[in-house]
C-alpha cells in the first residue's frame, strides 16, 4: 500500500523534512500502520548500526602514501611498452650500424665470406652423416661386407 507518505517518513526520520511538513507526517504516523512499521524498522536498524563498531585494521598514513606511489596497472603496462620500444630501437640501431660497417668494408660481412661457405660445407656433411645413419639398412651393410669378402678372396687367390 502506498499512502503517499513513504518518502516523507524517510526524510522525517533522517531529519531532512522541512519543519513545516513534520506535523503532517507525525499525524499520519499515528493513523498509518504501514508507515509506523517503516519507522519502527528504521529505528531498529539505526540502533543495530550504532551498536556495531568493528575494529578497523591499523592503517599507517606513511604506508598508504607509499602504496599510492606504487605504479598501477596502466603505469606498469606503459613502462613495459616504453622498455619494449627502447629495446626495439636499440636493436634497429645495432643492425643499422652493423650493415653500414659491412658495406664500408666491401661486403666483408660474415655471411659473404669464406667462413660462411666453410660452415655451410660442414653443416652439409653433418646432415649427410645423419641421413646415412637414418636411412642405411642392415642389407646395405651385408652387401658391403660381402663385396669386401669377395675382394679379400680374390686377393688371396692371386697370392697363392
Amino acid at each position, binding site marked *: 500500500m502506498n499512502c503517499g507518505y513513504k518518502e516523507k517518513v524517510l*526524510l522525517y526520520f533522517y531529519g531532512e523534512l522541512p519543519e513545516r511538513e513534520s506535523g503532517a507526517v507525525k499525524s499520519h504516523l499515528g493513523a498509518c500502520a504501514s508507515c509506523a*512499521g517503516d519507522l519502527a524498522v528504521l*529505528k531498529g536498524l539505526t540502533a543495530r548500526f550504532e551498536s556495531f563498531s568493528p575494529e578497523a585494521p591499523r592503517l599507517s598514513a606513511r604506508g598508504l602514501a607509499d602504496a599510492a606511489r606504487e605504479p598501477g596497472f596502466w603505469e606498469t603496462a606503459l613502462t613495459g611498452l616504453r622498455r619494449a620500444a627502447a629495446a626495439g630501437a636499440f636493436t634497429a640501431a645495432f643492425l643499422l650500424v652493423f650493415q653500414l660497417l659491412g658495406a664500408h668494408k666491401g661486403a666483408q660481412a660474415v655471411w659473404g665470406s669464406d667462413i660462411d661457405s666453410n660452415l655451410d660445407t660442414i653443416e652439409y656433411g653433418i646432415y649427410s652423416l645423419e641421413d646415412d645413419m637414418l636411412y642405411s639398412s642392415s642389407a646395405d651393410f651385408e652387401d658391403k661386407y660381402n663385396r669386401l669378402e669377395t675382394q679379400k678372396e680374390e686377393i688371396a687367390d692371386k697370392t697363392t
Partner: protein
Amino acid sequence: MSASDAELVKAFKEGDPGALDELISRYKGPLYAYLLRLARDRDAADDLLQEVFVKVIKKLGAYGEEDKFSAWLYTVAHHAVMDHFRAGARRREDSLYAADGDARPLADTLASREPSPEDAFASAESAGALEAAFARLSPEQREVFLLRHYSELSFREIADILKVPIGTVLARMSRALAKMRQELGEGMQ
C-alpha cells in the same frame, strides 16, 4: 578547534603526513563499518578500506577545497565496493551476524514476538531477525541504508554518489523497508 577536512587535505598536499593520519582516524571507523556490512566479508573489507584510502591519496590532486571530503571519500568507496562485487569476489549468503551466531531462525523469532511499532526491535531476539532481514536485501538496497547512516550524507548527496535521482534512492529504501517488514511478519504491516 579542530581543522576542517579541506584544511587537512591542504596540509597533507603541502607535505604534512600527520594531516593524513588525522583524516584516516576521522573516517576509518564508519567507513570500515559501511564496507564490512556491505561486503559481508572481513578480509574483503580490510582490503577495500586500504584500497579506498590509497585511491583517495592518488586522486587528491583532483580534490577541490570546495568539495565535501566525506562525499568524495564515499564516492571512491562506493566504486571500490561495486568493483569488488563485479569481480565476483567471495560473497557469503549468510550475514556477518548469522555467521557469528547472533541471528536466530526467523520462525522462532516471529513465534515469540508480539511487537508494537514502538518496541518492535527492543529485544535482542527481534534484533537478530532484523539483521537477518537486512542481510537478505540486495547490495543496492543495503547500500542506501548504510550510506545514509555511516556517511551522514543527505539523500541528495547519496543520489549524486550513486548517480541516480533522489527519488530512486528514496524508492529503493522504501521498497527495502516493505520487504523487511514482510519478512518480519504481518505485525509490521
